[in-house]
């Protein structure tokens, strides 16, 4: 299992559109992917659940990947967060 932490820099936090793009990105991989904020964990493939975390600027989320392509998934997601959030 692989994971990384990320502090959100985008002014609006993980609002609807980036959440949608994030889910799209996550669906490219077979590994089980999750996002955790304050002990609440949601699957990265669940758009409305990810939105329901209400992640704001300055908050830290943990992304975990578990599965065959976990390494590639973590790399891709790191890049996604840095670019979009």
């Amino acid at each position, binding site marked *: 299992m692989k994971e990384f932490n990320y502090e959100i820099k985008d002014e*609006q936090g993980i*609002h*609807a*559109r980036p*959440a*949608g793009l994030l*889910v*799209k990105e996550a669906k490219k991989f077979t590994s089980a992917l999750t996002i955790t904020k304050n002990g609440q964990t949601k699957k990265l*493939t*669940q*758009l*409305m*659940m990810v*939105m*329901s975390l*209400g992640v*704001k600027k300055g908050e830290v989320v943990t992304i975990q990947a578990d599965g065959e392509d976990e390494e590639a998934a973590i790399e891709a997601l790191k890049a996604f967060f840095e670019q979009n959030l």
Partner: protein
Amino acid sequence: MLKLSGKSVYKGVVLGPVTVFRPQDQLVKRTKIEDPQSEILRLQEAVVHAQEQLKKLYDKAVKEVGEASAAIFEVHQMMLEDEDYLDAIHNMIQTELVNAEYAAAVTGDNFSQMFADMDDDYMKARAADVKDISNRLIRNLQGNADNGLDSDEPSIIVADDLSPSETVQMDKEKILGFVTIHGSTNSHTAILARMMNIPALIGVPMNLDELHNGMLAVVDGFSGEVVFEPDDQLRQAAHEKMKQEQEKLHLLQNLKDKENVTLDGRSIKIYANIGSVGDVGYVLENDAGGIGLFRSEFLYLGRNDFPSEEEQFQAYKQVAQMMGGKKVIIRTLDIGADKQADYFNLGREENPALGYRAIRICLKQPEIFKTQLRALLRAAAFGNISVMYPMITSTEEVTAIYDIVKEVQKELDENETPYKLPEQGVMIETPAAVMISDELAEMVDFFSIGTNDLTQYTLAIDRQNEKLDDFYKPHHKAILRMIQMVTDNAHKHGKWAGICGELGADTDLTEEFLRMGLDELSVAPSMVLKVRKAVRETDLSK
């Protein structure tokens, strides 16, 4: 041939095809099903269809309003792919053996409640999006197209009733007239009809199930009659009347570029009322001297989230620039439970006209107000903009508004954002404001009398209640005396006073308004030249 009559709110005649408008929030019946597999198949087809519709809407919106505003349709597409949401509908169909429409409605309510409960305004507003996609699925399942308004041909809109957020979404180029079962002469459908110069009938006892899209109809705003599937003779007569109307309009055109001055030399300003940037065309076409009422709430309706400062700034600036230095009076947000957008989460009220609305919302939720004020002050640097505040009942409210305006000025100064402090006035639309108009006149630059609300509050008559239309007496002495009092108080303090309600366009009163000394009348664009004609035929020396 089916002939029905109702009450006319705008005189004119039109012949054209009908579009039956069905409301967004439809009643969904729960029915027991035998075969969950075929029900799920129906659902899947509805989802695919919805995705196609949203893609088209997205492309259309990118072209018309730009990518930022179009993004919402992309988000809707993504939400429609959400596995939890779709699984919840599937499960409900399978375990409870209910129809797909019902499962989609219940699931939509559950998910939207989840967002409505979050303590984040942005996420709260997403509740409306979930409702929106669920309603889209339901419409598709019921075999109703996108409200039927996607047709390319202009048509007569036939409906039970129309809410402001429904009319604002309509492509105005494609509306020939309105015929509704409910609604009152002062409803927003009526206001829109007058704005657009199209015939409209309300209170027509139709059975919508007997009507279908594409059916021909004649709407006659003079007789108050609508005829569905008219015979040749009637069609011929309608054509003839339409021609006569055109000729009358042409005659009025001769009054363009003429002054609004009486035979004995008294002049008055005639401005126009608008609801969107798109309406400026009507203002220029009818040669109005300015815009006396820009109903800014229309920027807030028919959408899923608050318009940003930038979006509002662009709209206000564009209107001011299109008017080329002529006065543009923008009324700040006038929204309430009777005229609202889902994302305001205003809830239902027993008495919306007496409720949480207009300036009350702005003073209680100053963030919403400040966004609009920043946009207004910035836009004022680009043209002749004035700002007016609705629903004022006390001098304390005006003081509170000025405090917020000062805060906004300070913020703009700190960021070195260019702006100008516009002329500021208040709407006089409550009896309280009339009674203290002497004190208000010391504080503000001008008064604009909103006669629709002033009449409703003074005569204690609900504008939306069609049963009361017979009691609604706009020429009531009480109203006319109030107008005189407000005008006199404005003049005592060297300020000006105008009327921006429907009464301003009532040519039976034009002479009286001139005698009262009013400085301005702001009317629907289609009425500007008619009022000019009335002014020019008046002689006050007699």
